């Protein structure tokens, strides 16, 4: 037909302009063009909305045009809007160019006049089905178009009493009258019985919903223009419950739980989609339930769709009288493990480019997929030995061990003392929050997977089991009983927040099979694309092995961390305080430092092979060092220790210790020693002129002064690191240690007192400084210049640093894989 322009059939030619067709409309037009059989319909464009919003009335000619579109649909489907023998029912949906809250949702089954309803019951041979449809339509129209909220128990009860073979006319009249009565009682409103009126009101309701309070607020906050307007999608409904040659189903193009290739999904003959979703009837696997020709058609379409989108899709479909219709195609939600496998598989079979494949996995998914879990064998052994105390309802996944604690105050106290805690409660109230935050795991004897305890645990990301009814907590005796067994507060237990198991004793955890081929393949692609060096922070030799397995190109470590882990630090500092740092011969304090370093670092170097090892010199001022040291008065008694080169002999001793360690370990890579807080070229010259042999000397920048003068520092150094957290802290004037914990900054940022959260984003004032350092690095390509990042590194920070030109990074061990992925993505995004 000649189109004056308020509407577009899905099948019409023309540009697919989201601004005109809205997101949903454009999606349906694209699906139609992709060759998928979509139930026919049309889009009322945003242009009509513009007129409605200014004139407060539908544009002239719109309704005639829609009527014309419906005639086309009627011709294509052999159905009639509002009448038998095959009534055409419609869905009416809002579809703005940008998805936003507050907009009108969907009205389904529009077009149920009395005639149409009766015809439908006859056609389906099921009056009950019709009664249900009428009640649903009336409730949905009342809710969406008229704003009703109430549940309609009387109507539901009436529908439940209808039989398949009841008289359709009488049933329609009863159900409609009951629904009208309920609506009249609530709102003194009425749903029009005439399908054309229903359609017109629904379209107007969509347009009006553009200006709901929520939609306006949302647009104002997100800078979306108020005059953009929304489109309306009008589509014919298809039914899977008309006969045995009809049905409905949902398939994923690959298994969303494991990532395994092959259609994964369910089909239920003679049913509507809601029956599958609501679990009213148990559906069958697609491959078995769908007739062969339809299965072949579905498989073919899914393969094409997957190839076109370069992603795994979630496909909703209905079969009506033996004809397959596609209702919705979306990117599939998936488990973290599946995300990794799918991205690797799509990359391997060429369905996805490297850029596309890397975009299919987020840093958080990778973190989840590599999270340590119980050792499989140990878990099986514990089960076999009857150590499983109980199985409750898994509410938040995670496999954790800790000491059993029965009240939140004690949980907090024990956690602050460094213990891992599993908090057991009968119920949780808001007053338990501090204990829940402190705990590694939570188990409650009451509640379901949606209890308050479960919601709080998930918001905290804490492993949680609820509804452990066998758990009897005796707060007075400080014990829990599970049947015959009694555990005392403080006893070790292990908790699996997915399976719901609570196990007596501690289970060993391992970084799992997740470090599998798929992950390695994906990260190799990311590493290739990024061409960056990623070094992992390590303290003990097993860390080095894990770092290399994760793909780190080298490691960073700190002398004070290594000595603290080995238990030497306190003794050495006391010896230094006692004996001073004069003299270098046997028996002097510095000789002890030298020998302790040689002893403890050699293991790291042996494990490092020929990978880079960058070492930070002891920093007695650092927050971490202060926590490591029982002796807090070091820098008070010897203020010179508070300056980077306050005691040059101490640095020289560390350097010599490292040289000894290298020769003991037969280390063949590049090692460097960097000193923190250096900010002046004169300091670097002094470092370079230290007596004795050893690794090359470098600097560890922490201050704005150092970064602004980076050019001269880089020129003189053999390695340069910038500690981003320290620099941000210096710019904010907030102690750096506050950047490592939730309190007090969570609350402070939530109160809106800082423009950004300096723990998760790079401040705009810091960016120019980073640019200065990056420039200095480019001017001296022979000097490795890197950034040291603490804690979780968001994808955004990784990509920003890549854009700024940084190609060398040091991160905490669990962040190596997510960072490599993030850098690869940043490299391919450009």
């Amino acid at each position: 037909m000649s189109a004056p322009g308020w509407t577009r059939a899905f099948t019409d030619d023309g540009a697919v302009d989201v601004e005109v067709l809205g997101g949903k409309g454009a999606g349906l037009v694209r699906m139609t063009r992709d060759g998928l059989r979509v139930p026919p319909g049309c889009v009322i464009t945003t242009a009509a909305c513009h007129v409605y919003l200014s004139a407060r009335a539908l544009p002239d000619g719109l309704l005639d045009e829609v009527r014309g579109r419906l005639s086309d649909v009627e011709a294509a489907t052999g159905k009639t809007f509002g009448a038998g023998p095959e009534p055409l029912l419609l869905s009416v949906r809002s579809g703005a160019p940008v998805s936003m809250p507050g907009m009108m949702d969907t009205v389904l089954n529009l077009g149920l006049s009395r005639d149409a309803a009766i015809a439908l019951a006859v056609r389906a041979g099921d009056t009950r089905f019709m009664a249900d449809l009428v009640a649903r339509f009336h409730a949905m129209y009342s809710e969406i178009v008229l704003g009703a909220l109430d549940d309609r128990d009387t109507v539901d009860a009436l529908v439940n009493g209808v039989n398949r073979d009841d008289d359709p006319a009488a049933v329609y009249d009863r159900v409609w009258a009951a629904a009208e009565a309920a609506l009249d009682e609530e709102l003194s409103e009425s749903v029009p019985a005439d399908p054309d009126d229903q359609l017109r009101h629904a379209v107007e309701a969509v347009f009006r919903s553009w200006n709901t309070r929520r939609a306006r607020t949302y647009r104002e906050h997100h800078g979306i223009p108020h005059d953009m307007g929304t489109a309306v999608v009008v589509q014919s409904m298809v039914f899977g419950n008309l006969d045995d040659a009809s049905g409905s189903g949902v398939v994923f193009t690959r298994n969303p739980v494991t990532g395994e290739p092959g259609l994964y999904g369910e089909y239920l003959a003679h049913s509507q989609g809601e029956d599958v979703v609501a679990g009213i009837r148990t559906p069958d696997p697609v491959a078995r339930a769908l007739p062969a020709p339809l299965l072949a058609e579905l498989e073919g379409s899914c393969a094409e769709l997957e190839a076109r989108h370069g992603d795994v899709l979630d496909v909703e479909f209905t079969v009506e009288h033996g004809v397959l219709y596609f209702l919705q195609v979306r990117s599939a939600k998936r488990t973290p493990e599946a995300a990794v496998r799918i991205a690797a598989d799509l990359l391997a079979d060429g369905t996805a480019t490297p850029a596309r494949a890397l975009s299919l996995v987020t840093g958080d998914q990778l973190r989840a997929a590599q999270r340590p879990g119980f050792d499989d064998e140990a878990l099986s052994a514990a089960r076999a030995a009857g150590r499983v105390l109980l199985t409750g309802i898994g509410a938040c996944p995670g496999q954790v061990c800790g000491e059993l604690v029965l009240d939140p105050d004690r949980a907090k106290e024990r956690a602050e003392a460094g213990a891992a805690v599993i908090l057991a409660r009968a119920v949780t109230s808001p007053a338990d929050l501090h204990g829940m935050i402190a705990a590694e795991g939570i188990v409650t004897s009451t509640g379901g997977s949606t209890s308050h305890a479960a919601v709080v645990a998930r918001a905290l990301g804490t492993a949680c089991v609820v509804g452990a009814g066998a758990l009897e907590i005796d707060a007075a005796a400080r014990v829990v009983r599970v049947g015959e067994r009694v555990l005392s507060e403080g006893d070790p237990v292990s908790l699996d927040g997915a399976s719901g198991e609570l196990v007596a004793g501690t289970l060993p955890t391992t970084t799992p099979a997740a470090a599998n081929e798929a992950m390695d393949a994906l990260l190799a692609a990311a590493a290739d694309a990024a061409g960056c060096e990623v070094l992992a922070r390590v303290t003990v030799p097993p860390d080095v092995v894990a770092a290399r397995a994760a793909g780190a190109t080298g490691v960073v470590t700190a002398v004070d961390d290594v000595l603290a882990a080995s238990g030497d630090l306190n003794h050495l500092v006391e010896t230094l305080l006692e004996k001073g740092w004069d003299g270098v011969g046997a028996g002097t304090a510095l000789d002890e430092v030298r020998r302790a370093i040689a002893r403890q670092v050699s293991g790291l170097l042996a494990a490092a092979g020929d990978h880079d090892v960058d070492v930070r010199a002891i920093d007695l001022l650092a927050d971490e060092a202060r926590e490591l040291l029982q002796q807090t008065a070091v820098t008070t008694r010897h203020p010179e220790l508070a300056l980077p080169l306050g005691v040059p002999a101490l640095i020289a001793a560390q350097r010599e210790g490292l040289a000894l360690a290298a020769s003991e370990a037969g280390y063949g890579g590049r090692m460097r020693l960097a000193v923190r807080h250096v900010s002046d070229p004169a300091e670097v010259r002094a470092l370079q002129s230290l007596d004795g042999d050893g690794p090359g000397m470098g600097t560890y920048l922490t201050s704005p002064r150092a970064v602004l003068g980076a050019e001269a520092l880089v020129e003189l150094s053999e390695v340069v690191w910038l500690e981003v957290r320290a620099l941000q802290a210096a710019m904010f004037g907030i102690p750096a240690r506050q950047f490592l914990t939730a309190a007090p900054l969570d609350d402070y940022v939530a109160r809106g007192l800082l423009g950004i959260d300096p723990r998760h984003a790079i401040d705009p004032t810091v960016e120019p400084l980073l640019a200065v350092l990056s420039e200095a690095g480019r001017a001296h390509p022979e000097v490795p210049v890197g950034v040291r990042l603490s804690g979780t590194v968001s994808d955004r920070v990784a990509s920003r640093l890549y854009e700024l030109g940084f190609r060398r990074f040091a991160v905490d061990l669990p962040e190596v894989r997510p960072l490599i992925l993030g850098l690869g993505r940043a490299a391919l995004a450009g």
Partner: protein
Amino acid sequence: MTVTTLAKPDYDVLNVLALKKMAGAPAIAAVVDLSAEDVSARLDALAAGGFAVVAGGAALPTDSAEPALAATASEIYAPVRTDADLLGLVEQFEKTNAQLLTTMSAWQQVDVGGRKVANDHTDAEYDEKIISRLERLVGRLDGLIDALARHDPRFATYATRFGAALEGIDGGDHDLVSSPTGDSIHTVWFEFHEDLLRTLGRERAE
């Protein structure tokens, strides 16, 4: 053993303190609609009475707080406990509470092939549907909050807090949906639920 009961504004202050477990005067003042100075003075008085401990600008309830609150509530809220209309609304609340919790769970986890997976919040359409549902569920509390506020105006602060959380969410701060540390919809709801149970002298079932 006799349990001391509390005078009215002191009850409000200690009630909030017991809900929050540890709070400073400004945080309590924001909820009970008193000035921070007033709250601070009342906290000191409560501490003197042995119901709270005040240290470093924050207060904690003692073990005698709960019995005193329970005893006081049974006196001052006796009319609430026999208000048939209100009790009808409470019964409705139980249903709405279950829906709220299901909706909160849907915000946090999505179903993937029968397994629950953390919602990564990349599907804006999904998230917005849940937020719309939350707004409607919060709206269903209006009647109950009004009915409670007719007995004790302090309950109206819950409506204010829900409103502030919803406004923040619309402004893009999605932590205000379920964050346990901020004044999120879930936090306000959870506290309201607890407060309601204490007001009615009922026990928490889960």
